């Protein structure tokens, strides 16, 4: 290998990205745990720990920019660096959603006016699996896995539609729970966005490996675009 040093830097970058992904995954899980168990301390920790995620994202960005400036990457190298940049942003945004859930948790407090809709933990679980899958597809350069992640987004969307219908129903039946229900609506929204971001990561992995944007047909592009 003529560019061993550059290759080592790329590997380190990918490892750090995966590490960031794991931190984000933990934050999502923790925020949902806090919500389920109404643990305000835990919720506060999630909010506080988001700063670590933000910092790591900027660190990764800086490393990418340095490599672009000093190594003049082309072809796969160029796509890899752009992908890392992009994914770092996606992960940071996912962290923000976990932080959002933590904040909602703190607003709701430990006073329990209603049960947590059962679809929310399911959505969270699906989102985390998608996140894991998307990062694994990055490490393994596995476009099939990336496509699977992409497909899973539809399931999360279905769950989201279901939970929204249910919450609206609850609001109608029990007007006293409207405030809490609105908060749960936000949580559902955050979880849906998390899954969208995981889909974006999968999309970037496909770009990185094949050099083409979009899956195979670009019709889903509008649906996948971020907020």
């Amino acid at each position, binding site marked *: *290998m*003529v*560019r061993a040093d550059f290759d080592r830097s790329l590997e380190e970058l990918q490892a750090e990205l995966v590490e960031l992904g794991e931190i984000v995954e933990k934050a999502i899980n923790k925020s949902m745990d806090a919500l389920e168990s109404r643990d305000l301390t835990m919720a506060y920790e999630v909010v506080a720990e988001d700063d670590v995620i933000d910092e790591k994202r900027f660190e990764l960005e800086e490393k990418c920019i340095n490599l672009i400036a000093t190594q003049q990457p*082309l*072809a*796969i190298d*160029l*796509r890899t660096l752009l992908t890392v940049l992009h994914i770092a942003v996606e992960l940071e945004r996912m962290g923000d959603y976990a932080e959002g859930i933590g904040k909602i948790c703190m607003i709701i407090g430990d006073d329990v006016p209603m049960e947590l809709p059962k679809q929310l933990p399911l959505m969270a679980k699906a989102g985390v699996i998608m996140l894991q899958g998307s990062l694994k597809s990055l490490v393994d350069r596995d476009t099939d896995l990336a496509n699977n992640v992409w497909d899973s987004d539809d399931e999360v969307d279905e769950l989201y539609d279901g939970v929204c219908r249910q919450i609206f129903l609850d609001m109608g039946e029990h007007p006293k729970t409207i405030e809490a229900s609105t908060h749960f609506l936000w949580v559902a929204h955050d979880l849906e966005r998390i899954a969208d971001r995981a889909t974006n990561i999968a999309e970037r992995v496909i770009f990185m490996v*094949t*050099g083409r944007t979009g899956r195979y047909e670009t019709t889903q592009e509008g649906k996948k675009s971020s907020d």
Partner: protein
Amino acid sequence: MLDQDPILQTRGLSVYYDTKKVVTDVNLDVARNRITSIIGPSGCGKSTLLRCFNRMNDLIPSARVEGQVMFDGLDLYGHDVDPTEIRYLIGMVFQRPNPFPKSIYDNVAFGPRINGFKGDMDELVERSLVRAAIWDEVKDRLNTSALALSGGQQQRLCIARALAVEPRVILMDEPCSALDPIATLAIEELMRELSEDYSIIIVTHNMQQAARVSHYTAFLMVEEARVGFMVEFGESRQIFTNPEDERTEAYITGRFG
């Protein structure tokens, strides 16, 4: 391969030095009023390929060319073609700036003179120098020696000299390899401007340069069994972001061999 009628086309082009094959079966289309770069590792025959387009290889007694090079429908290696006549239609700029040891004016006027130009020489010299973006720097010292110019200026003078015989194609053989980065950028800028009126083929070792200036890129390679064969040809933006062949990918990302 192109979305237009190419100005130059090679079909089954092979070049031998004595019995050694140095270019193998190249089919390349060169786009009109575009810049086509030829990249590849040392010894891949890219300079030899370039020199087929103006028959400079004829000057090497042991060189032999097989196949066709079509220039707007004319077979450059046809029996009735005089190589000296195609060399001013297809001009050339070389690796090292090689101005003649004459005045700036005489350098530019040399080509027109030997080709029997009868018009207004002063006007032609000025036009060529303006076109090569060096007029402002030399207009007050046209009669001083060209060798007193800096390397980058000399190379632009060489471009002006080539333009003075009103070519349609300009071949450039690593035109910036002897220049500093700023002079290099000036030449690249000039190439982009010239590509509005001329078709340019550039051989370069500098992949960034090929990526920066050229519209199309051809990648030539050398393997144990074959020398100087074309691996991939395409639009530069595709070659440099997402090449199809993994050998191209390995080469342009610097992971060759």
